[in-house]
């Protein structure tokens, strides 16, 4: 049974009734993905279980911890509170996309250099939030950083070195933009 059978209009192709699967097309880390999924599939499970992208973690049930943070059309969101069907036609980026061509992103580098992680479980989500922040605010203040990561809980680091890492990543990105950016 095709999902389209339940469409209420030709445009509303993305519907699913009675336990049937919905077909979605989504770009994940630059790759186009087509999948048939139950509408209740949470984005985080889609990423982890269907696509095998296990860098995105699950730390709570109630949208509080942020371990599951990914970028949806460039904005940081909690993938445990998004239905995978909602990402149809959209772009998702996970922690696995940060390293490009064997080069870590400035955020990844800075997290290592500033000891911004310990057990590593909140780290992917934390770095995705940091990535979103720095894309918008080049040189955030400490207060802006702390506010930007308030939806990402960390139990190990006490946040001090995470804040430092994000500051450092911001500086790296600025100096890269200042020198190599014109090429």
């Amino acid at each position, binding site marked *: 049974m095709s999902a389209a059978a339940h469409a209420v209009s030709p445009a509303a192709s993305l519907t699913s009734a009675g336990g049937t699967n919905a077909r979605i097309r989504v770009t994940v880390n630059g790759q186009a993905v087509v999948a048939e999924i139950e509408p209740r599939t949470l984005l985080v499970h889609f990423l982890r279980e269907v696509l095998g992208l296990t860098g995105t973690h699950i730390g709570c049930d109630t949208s509080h911890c942020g371990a599951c943070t990914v970028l949806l059309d460039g904005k940081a969101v909690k993938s445990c509170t998004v239905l995978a069907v909602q990402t149809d036609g959209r772009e998702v980026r996970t922690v696995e996309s940060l390293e490009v061509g064997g080069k870590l992103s400035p955020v990844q580098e800075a997290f290592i250099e500033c000891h911004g992680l*310990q057990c*590593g479980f909140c780290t992917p989500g934390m770095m995705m939030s940091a990535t979103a922040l720095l894309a918008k605010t080049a040189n955030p203040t400490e207060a802006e950083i702390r506010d930007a990561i*308030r939806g990402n809980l960390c139990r190990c680091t006490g946040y001090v070195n995470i804040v430092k890492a994000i500051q450092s990543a911001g500086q790296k990105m600025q100096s890269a933009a200042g020198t190599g950016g014109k090429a």
Partner: protein
Amino acid sequence: MSAAPPHIKGGIGQSILRKEDARFVRGKGNYVDDVKLPGMLYLDITRSPYAHAKITAIRTERALKVPGVLAVITGKDLEAAGLAWMPTLMSDKQMVLPTDTVMYQAQEVAAVVADSRYAAADGAAAVEVDYEPLPVVTDPFKALEPGAPVIRTDRSEKSNHIWHWETGDKSGTDQLLTSSPVRVEQDLYIPRIHVSSMETCGCVAHMDSVTGRFTIYMTTQAPHAIRTVFALVAGLPEQNIRVISPDIGGGFGGKVPVYPGYVLAAVASIKTGHPVKWIEDRSENLQADSFARDYHIHAEVGATADGKVTALRVKTLADHGYTDAAANPSKFPAGLFHIITGSYPFAKAFVEVDAAYTNKPPGGIAYRCSFRVTEAVYTIERMMDILAHRLKIDPAEFRLKNFIPPEAFPYSSALGWTYDSGNYAGALQKAMQIIDYAGLRREQAEKRRRGELMGIGISSFTEIVGAGPSEKFDILGIKMFDSAEVRIHPTGKVIARFGTKSQGQGHETTYAQILAEELGIPADDIRVEEGDTDTAPYGLGTYASRSTPTAGAAAAVAARRIREKAQKIAAHLLEVSPDDVEWKDYAFRVKGVPSKSKTMQEVAFAAYTNHPRGIESGLEAVDYYDPPNMTYPFGSYICVVDIDKETGQIHVRRFVAVDDCGTIINPMIVDGQIHGGLTMGFAPALLEEIQYDENGNIRGGSFTDYLLPSAVETPKWETAKTVTPSPHHPIGAKGVGESATVGAPPAIVNAIVDALQPYGVEHIDIPVHPWKVWQILHGAEAKAK
């Protein structure tokens, strides 16, 4: 220009970057939920809505009809296999699944196995259970009253009293307290809190019916001990059990116990022949996993008129939930609570603890602390402030006047501990200098004149970690040693394996640093492995800040053992007698001719290619380290708070932590441990608590209500160190993972109480919610009107 002292790349004292981070920042950590085996099934759990109820029926038909559901396991099924109950570490027993009675809300009632996570969840929701509610007891004092409903009817003792434990000189303490001119007493309640590591608990269990091998990937801090428990409880041959503790997303004590879910996954795998994954939800983690604290403490402390402490007497009621599943060394039912005399030379002390059953989940694990040390430190550091207040002495001055002096070490405490080393005044004075204590007191005096509320709080804690010496410390009879197996391969590269298991502490880096220092091989060339019982030497695991004191010591001892052999090979290569060779500046050198030398790498190659006759090939050593004593890290913390008089809101303006953990292996990692520990001290002081209503309903069973600190309110921690090495540890290190969690809460509460001194307040129970402060201020205001 003087030459830099010789050093080895990545040796002790260097802030090298962590080896483990390469995978974590790429999202390539391998946590239990990332493990996927062919044919793997999923297990989900149906839980009780009641805190105490008789189960009259469990109907599984609807669940079994859910597409994808393959099996439902109930207590009756387990009973048939003799697995309905399992032993706890404290000689009690706990249910895997109940056969007739549930004893706390969210207790496991049935397990559903399905071919997907989603089907398992649907199945668990479809299991139908009939309950007959029974009377609920959540208050341990009421639990001990005559006529209280008996929770554990399976025991021969028809009462909720579990045990009584006491230590110290009762009559001597009574006498000295009675004769002390100054005496204070206080009730302190340390509520139930939950470690809430960001990763919850879970496992993938696989019984291979062909080979008879049972493999379990498991969130455990103690894989080897778990394997032994599985062997003893399930009767499986130990060599056929493999426990793998992969990357662990934080432990803090919560991943020491064996939870029913692990056992259920194992049973489900045996039953189905497939690997079975069980991953806890956060709500299950908060509602059903072992808790920390829940200590009702009554403390009395005496002093002379001129302010010298004399005696301490403590009576405590410990609420253990429905079973005593505490994670303590077996001979210590109340853990190391008797470190409670703290940094002070009490002549006499007496401590007693009674434990009670209540209709709550099992308890008595740590929350990033070494067996009830937080409870002890909180009590003594609060009492010292109350005493100082009563004596009208500044709390810093009072502590400085009373500290055990540096020359008194090793110091024997009134409750029988031998403190290894300390310089308590040194740490406090350093903290006072950093924060400008005198300046803060001036500022406070000025603010008080203006009616503003500012407080300064001190905590000068002494910890006890590194369990422990084998004559006293065991778990179910297994001595609490830990181990290192170090092997240098022909090209001078090292693989070292340990009985511990990092959960974020950075063992892969710090153990490599110890070995680098001892072997003269760069840390980059040393690979550290832990957490696989097939390959790692036996050890008791990582908790109670014991890894560096035990396995870290084992690393140094094993390395030195390797050096002894290597020296003989070096002598052979240098064509001199072994006695003419010395290990100096990371190489074997001919005495008096230091330029004539062989590196460890050269020796390693020779150990496989050109070793002298009479010496066997290879270069390796194993050490099972039995520490001669505990280590006693210490420190002094100073906290400054500002309080909003209208709202009672507390702002931690500054927090200076001076820690002394002996020799520092990696300053960056030590600072990180302290930052995290401070935050886990801040959390219960101001935010975290799990409450129950009179029906045993949990309040705070999800992250909506159980509030972990975010980056916004977490203070910007300031850290500093003093270094007083442990005299008995091979490299002088003491362990640091938990000091800050232990030391921070009293500093914060002392600061708040100090701010409220104009209102005559001597104590506020944690967590200090703004309304607790407001009630004090408001009450005073109402009285004034």
